[in-house]
């Protein structure tokens, strides 16, 4: 039986904690994604936009979270991935990703997912529906 199929409802899949967010992380994401909005990389531009400093791309955080599921690629795939961005991620924040299995329904596994900062605040929250191959 595959690893993902062994999970019990209520079980936390895994937690991943990232190193403190660095400017280079965001520069790399800007380059790789093509999102060059300067509030993510240039201090002056972030301040002009009324922010205390540069903030991470929401999609950077969402992209990072998805790696909780990468190792299950032989068992199935992420069919649905829905996220609400709840809070900003600043430089040096320490982000932790969590996924909890909420429900199993035939070939689908429903997870609640979130990213939490070092103050215990949710920065994003959502759901993953993992489609298992038969």
């Amino acid at each position, binding site marked *: 039986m595959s690893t993902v199929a062994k999970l019990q409802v209520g079980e936390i899949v895994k937690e991943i904690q*990232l190193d403190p967010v660095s400017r280079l*992380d965001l520069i*790399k*994401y800007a*380059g*790789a*994604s*093509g*999102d060059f*909005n*300067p*509030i993510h990389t240039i201090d002056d*531009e972030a301040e002009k*936009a009324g922010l205390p400093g540069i903030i991470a*791309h*929401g*999609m*950077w955080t*969402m*992209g*990072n979270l*998805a*790696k909780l599921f*990468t*190792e299950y*690629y*032989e068992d199935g*795939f*992420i*069919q*649905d*991935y*829905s*996220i*609400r*961005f709840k809070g900003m991620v600043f430089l040096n924040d320490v982000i932790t990703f969590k996924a909890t299995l909420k429900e199993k329904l035939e070939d689908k596994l429903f997870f609640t997912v979130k990213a939490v900062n070092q103050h215990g605040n949710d920065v994003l929250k959502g759901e993953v529906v993992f489609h298992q*191959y038969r």
Partner: protein
Amino acid sequence: MFKDQIGKQSNKVKNVVERGAVKKFAEAIGDLHPIYFDEDAGRLSRYKNNIAPPTFPRVFDYGVIEGLNLPNKGLIHGEQTFHYVRPLFVEEEIYCYSIVKKYFEKKGKFGEMGFLVLESYGEEETGSTIFSSTSTIVISEAVRKVLTR
């Protein structure tokens, strides 16, 4: 002010899931798993191919929606969803476009906020859908004022 844009659609654009771009993207999100870039790992997998991370469609070109002028500053990404029929394969061609799905305004902490929902699609050449996604973009009153000036 975006209400009259609802239903508008961009032209379809052919995109290629480029091998190098997938590796760079996987690296940028700290998800450098061999299934994304190692050719042997791809060949030996059930997909017989490398795949791309689920948020990779961020890099695609979805074409231009005529008349939709979004500012390049002052937008807030509120929500994002992806729906997949199957994973994306490295080196495949995907035809992408977007539609303005919804626009509404709601009172919030920072005044009357605008919510623009864009729906995007990635299709095979035959027209069958590989993925769809929605992005909710929040536009503050201050930014909208600048736009109408």
